[in-house]
């Protein structure tokens, strides 16, 4: 049994009721429930008595260090078998870390610990790492986003990477680390003992200098399949270095997140080569980079290569216009693996949709999810979109939010949604100004077509 509650104020009677169901649940989730340290005493006793409880999620509650102490007492009970613990944004400080240290060194059953958005600080994370280094600890996922880590923490994280072959996912995004710290971390990642699969270093104040080290890791470690370095100003030189590692046959990267990295068309040349040679790569995010139409043309060349196996491309807010739509359209007509295309926030306009229409209608195109929010579209392109909807059963998700489609445009879409060939599951129309008649029409349509959800 699962207990899944979010955003609920807890009355005393409601809490009593929940306590008994917590005792028989396998997973308990009470996010944003205004819980405090006093509730932790009860949750602690649930941890002591409920042996089938494997997942506990208490994000966004003001538990505080005293609350965590009570939880950890429960966790330390030999009969407790908890595997996953989420305590994001729970108002914890370094004082909580000694309790986590005890739990980590005593409980090999614990595999996931998510502590993001708590001010653990340098000293706190050092104490946490002592627990992580204990031979008893078998942690697989550690999330320390926004935890006020400093470069001083990387030495110990490096040792942990060297000694913990169980560790698969490390998220230390949104901490002020810098290049020197990442260099130290990369030494740990290069260790033969390290089996890390997923590394998140978003907004860590790193530059192109770190990309050389990360590139060596990529070339050496086929285990590393997911890398996020978004929101770091690595620029084209950084991308060139990363691509060098990515192109190594040893590298088996699957997901690459390079949003807001200061990449220009020059960097797209390197990325294009990665797209056309790296068959393992399935997801790429380049959101918020000034690729422009010339950069996009280069990426499209790579995507048209038969070896390109990309499934999801995020190119929102990349400064694209109608001019690059011809290239994207020909990718859609040739690439059969692409499933998801996020291109909102680009001024492609109605003319751009007309051009994409051609590629989308090609039988080779298997796109399932298309995001065109805030693309300067009007009712004029809804005819084309309607044709796509009624003749492309592969398309299940379409986002057209923040476009001035108006009643006229949305009415055209409605006609196609009624078509039996239309297999759309989700039409997202956030922030589109419609009359209440069309609003009602959409509601009626939604009710008449099971499986379709129109999100307004």
């Amino acid at each position, binding site marked *: 049994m699962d207990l899944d509650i979010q955003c609920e104020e807890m009355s005393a009677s409601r809490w009593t009721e929940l306590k008994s169901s917590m005792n028989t649940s396998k997973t308990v989730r009470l996010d944003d429930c205004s819980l405090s340290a006093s509730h932790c005493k009860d949750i602690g006793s649930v941890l002591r008595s409920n042996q089938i409880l494997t997942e506990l999620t208490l994000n966004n509650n003001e538990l505080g260090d005293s609350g965590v102490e009570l939880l950890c007492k429960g966790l330390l009970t030999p009969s407790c078998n908890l595997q996953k613990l989420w305590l994001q944004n729970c108002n914890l400080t370094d004082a909580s870390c000694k309790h986590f240290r005890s739990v980590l060194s005593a409980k090999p059953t614990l595999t996931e610990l998510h502590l993001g958005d708590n001010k653990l600080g340098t000293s706190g994370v050092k104490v946490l790492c002592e627990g992580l280094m204990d031979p008893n600890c078998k942690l697989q996922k550690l999330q320390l986003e926004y935890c006020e880590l400093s470069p001083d923490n990387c030495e110990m994280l490096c040792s942990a990477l060297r000694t913990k072959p169980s560790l698969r996912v490390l998220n230390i995004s*949104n901490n002020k680390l810098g290049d020197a710290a990442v260099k130290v971390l990369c030494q740990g990642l290069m260790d033969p003992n390290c089996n890390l699969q997923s590394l998140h270093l978003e907004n860590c104040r790193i530059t192109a200098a770190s990309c050389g080290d990360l590139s060596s890791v990529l070339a050496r470690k086929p285990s590393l399949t997911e890398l*996020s370095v978004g*929101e770091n100003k690595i620029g084209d030189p950084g991308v060139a270095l990363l691509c060098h590692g990515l192109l190594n046959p040893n590298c088996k990267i699957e997901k690459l997140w390079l*949003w807001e990295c200061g990449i220009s068309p020059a960097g797209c040349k390197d990325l294009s080569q990665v797209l056309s040679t790296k068959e393992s790569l399935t997801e790429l*995010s380049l959101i*918020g980079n000034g690729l422009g139409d010339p950069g996009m043309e280069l990426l499209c060349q790579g995507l048209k290569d038969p070896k390109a196996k990309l499934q999801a491309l995020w190119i929102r807010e990349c400064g694209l216009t109608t001019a690059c739509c011809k290239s994207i359209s020909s990718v859609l007509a040739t690439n059969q693996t692409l499933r998801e295309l996020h291109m909102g926030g680009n001024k492609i306009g109605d003319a751009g949709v007309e051009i994409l229409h051609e590629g989308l209608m090609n039988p080779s195109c298997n796109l399932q999810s298309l*995001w065109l929010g805030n693309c300067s579209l009007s009712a004029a392109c809804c005819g084309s979109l309607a044709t796509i909807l009624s003749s492309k059963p592969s398309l299940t998700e379409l986002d057209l939010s923040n*476009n*001035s489609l108006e009643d006229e445009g949305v009415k055209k879409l409605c006609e196609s949604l009624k078509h039996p060939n239309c297999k759309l599951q989700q039409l997202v129309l956030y922030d589109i100004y419609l009359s209440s008649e069309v609003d009602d029409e959409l509601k009626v349509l939604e009710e008449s077509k099971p499986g379709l959800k129109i999100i307004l």
Partner: protein
Amino acid sequence: MAPSRPRPVLLLTLTLLAACVALTLGQNQEQYERFLLQHFDAKPKGRDDRYCNNRMRYMMKEDRRRDRNPGPKVCKETNTFIHGNSDDIKAICTSRGGRNYVTRTGQAMRQSLRSFQVTTCTWHGGKPLDHCQYRATRDSRMIVIACDEHEHPVHFAESQI
């Protein structure tokens, strides 16, 4: 002659009329409340990426909770929160705080006379609801909204200015 009793037909008509007015008012009120939920946050904390992650999570959950027939969880791609006083936003619907504005496609809306502090949250990764990750952009700018007949804001026009 005794005073005539109200005729049943008239009574029925009046009751229906009152019900209709109440229903329309209720619907409008609902739209205004949804506008506030989606686009208003009086006193934001931080206005950084973390603010957006938390505020968007709260907003989307609350929005789903109010929906009689909530569908699959999605990450809303772009959303702007206006800060300050809700009465100042409401005033845009009147001559006190706003002027007529015609969108590029000819829709009649209202533009604020003064600029507002806004935070725009854009999705950059992570999937449904609890894991949607947002990027924050702070701005101080004029805003364009649409109002209903009761001078209540009901729509925020993201891409107009």
